[in-house]
């Protein structure tokens, strides 16, 4: 049988302690006659809700093959390991290919590219905004001359005001 185990480790540990814990988890699996086929370490990740006061967790996913009889012992061991916030073991089909965390992120990017009604609406809104911005930006050369002239005039006026002694 093929299994998948996801573990959440306590984030309040040092990196060395986390490595040690992961090794311990793997050892408990190998002791119960499971062979680790594949692994994917997600690293620190925000939790969707607080678990024992933790807002973050160190995620790791392991894929194993072995006899179903050994699973009871694995459950017993994993519930007793301190520093392990939560774990879940699930059966997966034999031809299962592990969904990588990085791959999932890439998939999210490609999914965003696919057009959906909401996306098309957003695009329309964005393009209309761009159109309104472009005509303002285009006649830069003409406006620069105008502004230069205006500043010169204003400077002259200011000078005249400053030199005027009647105001004081």
């Amino acid at each position, binding site marked *: 049988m093929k299994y998948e185990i*996801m573990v*959440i480790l306590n984030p309040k540990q040092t990196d060395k302690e986390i490595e040690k814990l992961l090794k311990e988890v793997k050892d408990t699996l190998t002791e119960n006659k499971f062979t680790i086929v594949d692994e994917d370490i997600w690293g620190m990740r925000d*939790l*969707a*809700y607080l*678990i024992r006061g933790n807002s973050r*967790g160190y995620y790791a*996913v392991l894929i194993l093959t072995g006899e179903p009889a050994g699973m009871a012992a694995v459950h017993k061991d994993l519930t007793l390991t301190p520093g392990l916030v*939560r774990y*879940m073991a*699930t059966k*997966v*089909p034999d031809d*299962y290919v592990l*969904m990588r*965390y990085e791959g*999932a992120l890439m*998939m*999210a990017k490609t*999914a965003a590219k696919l057009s959906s009604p909401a996306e098309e609406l957003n695009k329309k809104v964005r393009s209309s905004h761009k159109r309104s911005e472009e005509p303002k930006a285009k006649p830069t050369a003409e406006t620069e001359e105008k502004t230069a002239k205006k500043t010169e005039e204003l400077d002259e006026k200011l000078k005249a005001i400053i030199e005027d002694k009647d105001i004081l």
Partner: protein
Amino acid sequence: MTKKVKIQKTKRPEVPVFIDYKDLELLRGYLSVFGRIVPRYYTGVSLKQQKQLSLAIKRAREMALLPYTSKY
């Protein structure tokens, strides 16, 4: 007697054969604004797929990948 034929009016959305609970982008499409599972008469997927989806969402919730409820 004429035989009743069920007509699928709208096309069923495409769902992978094996629904992984780590595929969060897929699962988020079947959650409401408040983080609840959207019923089948809105999603339009088959009964088998809906059951698999809801199981995957529940697994993801247990591992804190998805929220049980999202605050408004």
